[in-house]
């Protein structure tokens, strides 16, 4: 009867317990690595459970909640609405929900996925064939390499396209459970970063002229987020001096596979120079050989290795009284590497011997990046101003000038603009 009338079947309320396909439910937390919460029992053994123990995931009447609290001294888990929904619905996994249009759509998507995977296999075979056979007529070594590279790129695209229509992949990504080793999750994360956060970052660093002031250009490919202690700092935010006294930590998320070594530099381009009547640079932090991959994202500036990574340790940013805000730009520079070999670290003993790269004042990031062939891949920015804590910070740093206030020079008015009395004095 039911098979003859599929629409009726679809329209029927699924909360009734007539449909039992599988005893488990993966609607709430789909395949995750962590063990799922204790599965709610199916409705047959619910009354049996009621008599012995109450399930904190399922109790949804005030009376049973009270009973749970008094007898088992447990609080119910989740909202009452959710508990009620869990207790009264049948346990059908998402992919088997009996909606005709949904199932037809899934069929089409699975068919497409199979096609994409077959195409990936075909491309792999083709690459092998190309590498085995000799050069074609009229083709150079570089042309063949280009052909192989473009085929590999096509494979990477296909890997993403095969999974991009999967609703469970979308769900897992939205829940933040995506595995960054897989190309599909990396691609989704990249997309969402480029949609909003990267635009904001680019706007901040161009409006505050970080790009031409410190490095000529950057096209960020690594997403950055800065936090001082527990406080997350949006790009370009003004940070209290007491907060920035301790070294920050960063989340650096790269979206292409493989490991790489990066150099992190924090540069302040607004250090006042009174003799010159201008501004100079100061380096607040410099560290090289920081390992980065799609899954290794956290970098704590304070816990980097002193010998093999840190070149210039963290110095708290300070701005003397009367000055404008000072920009502190954090640049992530990728160290040169070849695709076949593991990345080679920079020689820090050689760098530490050179005074121009170990002196904080007058540090030129352009020169450093050129000398060691570093490619800028990520950027972040925070600002510092004079506040109540700055004098204390400077005192603890051992920097003099905490009691100095900068003032603008008085511009002498032209004679005809002077007041009557002072004109001829």
């Amino acid at each position, binding site marked *: 009867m039911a098979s003859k009338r599929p629409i009726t079947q679809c329209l029927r309320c699924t909360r009734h317990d007539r449909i039992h396909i599988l005893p488990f439910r993966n609607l709430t937390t789909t395949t995750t690595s962590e063990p799922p919460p204790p599965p709610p029992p199916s409705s047959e053994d619910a009354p049996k459970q009621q008599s012995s123990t109450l399930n904190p995931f399922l109790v949804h009447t005030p009376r049973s909640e009270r009973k749970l609290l008094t007898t088992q001294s447990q609080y119910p888990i989740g909202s009452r609405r959710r508990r009620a929904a869990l207790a009264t619905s049948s346990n059908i996994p*998402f992919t088997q*929900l009996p909606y005709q249009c949904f199932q*037809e759509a899934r069929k089409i*998507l699975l068919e497409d996925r199979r096609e994409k995977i077959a195409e990936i296999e075909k491309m792999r075979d083709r690459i092998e064939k190309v590498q085995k056979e000799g050069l074609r007529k009229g083709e150079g070594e570089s042309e063949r390499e280009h052909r192989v590279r473009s085929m590999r790129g096509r494979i990477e695209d296909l890997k993403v396209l095969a999974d991009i229509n999967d*609703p469970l992949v979308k769900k897992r990504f939205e829940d933040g459970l995506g595995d960054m080793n897989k190309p599909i999750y990396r691609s989704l994360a990249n997309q969402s970063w480029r949609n909003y956060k990267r635009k904001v970052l680019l706007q901040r660093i161009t409006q505050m002229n970080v790009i031409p002031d410190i490095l000529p250009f950057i096209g960020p490919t690594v997403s950055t987020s800065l936090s001082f202690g527990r406080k997350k700092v*949006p790009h370009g935010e003004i940070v209290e001096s007491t907060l920035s006294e301790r070294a920050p930590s960063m989340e650096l998320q790269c979206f292409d596979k493989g490991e790489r070594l990066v150099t992190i530099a924090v540069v302040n381009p607004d250090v006042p120079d009174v003799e010159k009547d201008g501004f100079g640079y100061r380096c607040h932090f410099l560290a090289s050989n920081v390992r980065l991959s799609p899954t290794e994202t956290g970098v704590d500036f304070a816990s980097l290795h002193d010998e093999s990574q840190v070149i210039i340790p963290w110095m708290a940013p300070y701005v003397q009284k009367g000055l404008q805000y000072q920009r502190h730009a954090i640049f992530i520079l990728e160290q040169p590497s070849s695709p076949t070999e593991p990345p080679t670290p920079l020689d820090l003993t050689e760098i530490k011997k050179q005074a121009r790269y170990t002196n904080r004042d007058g540090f030129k990031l352009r020169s450093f990046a050129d000398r060691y062939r570093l490619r800028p891949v990520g950027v972040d920015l925070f600002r510092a101003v004079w506040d109540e804590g700055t004098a204390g910070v400077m005192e603890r740093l051992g920097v003099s000038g905490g009691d100095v206030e900068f003032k603008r020079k008085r511009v002498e008015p032209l004679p005809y603009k002077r007041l009557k009395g002072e004109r001829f004095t």
Partner: protein
Amino acid sequence: MQVPSTGLLRAFSPLYKTTPCLPWTARGCVYQQRASFSSTEQRQKRNKGGQKKDPRITQIRYHLQHPLTPRPLRFSRTRYLRHWTIHRAWQLYQSKLRTQRERDLEKQYNTMHAACEALRLIDNHGMTTQDRARLGEPPQDEGGKEMGRLYRIAMLKHGVWDGVPIEYARIQTDSPGREGWNHAWTQ
């Protein structure tokens, strides 16, 4: 001289404003600027006084309220995912259909092109120059009347407008002609 008091004026006249007043359309900008310098959304639960709403948005919502306005789509998580799955499948199906049609057209065009090329190369007896050479026949004149006669006939434009009014044959242009209408023309 004592300055007259503005108290009465301030109390009763709506025109008297001590603070500079923005047009009402710009007030939303002021409200938004009160938020901290942050790109993330404010958490509503933290915010005790409730989120600051832009008055323009309130106005739009107010005026959209009409019995004929369809209610907005609000789905649960799983229902939204099902909806999304169906949507993606439909888009995929459509794009496949489109590429299939384009390929069919391309195939037809290529076949027609090949047929015309074959016609262009044969003579009245249906033989190309190569065929003649192979069979030992005397060669035809390459630029003569005999070669490619069928091709020339096929390229004639006679009768393509049969059944279609000739007015539709006007070439589509970006701007009208110098004289807008040819009044002298009759069919």
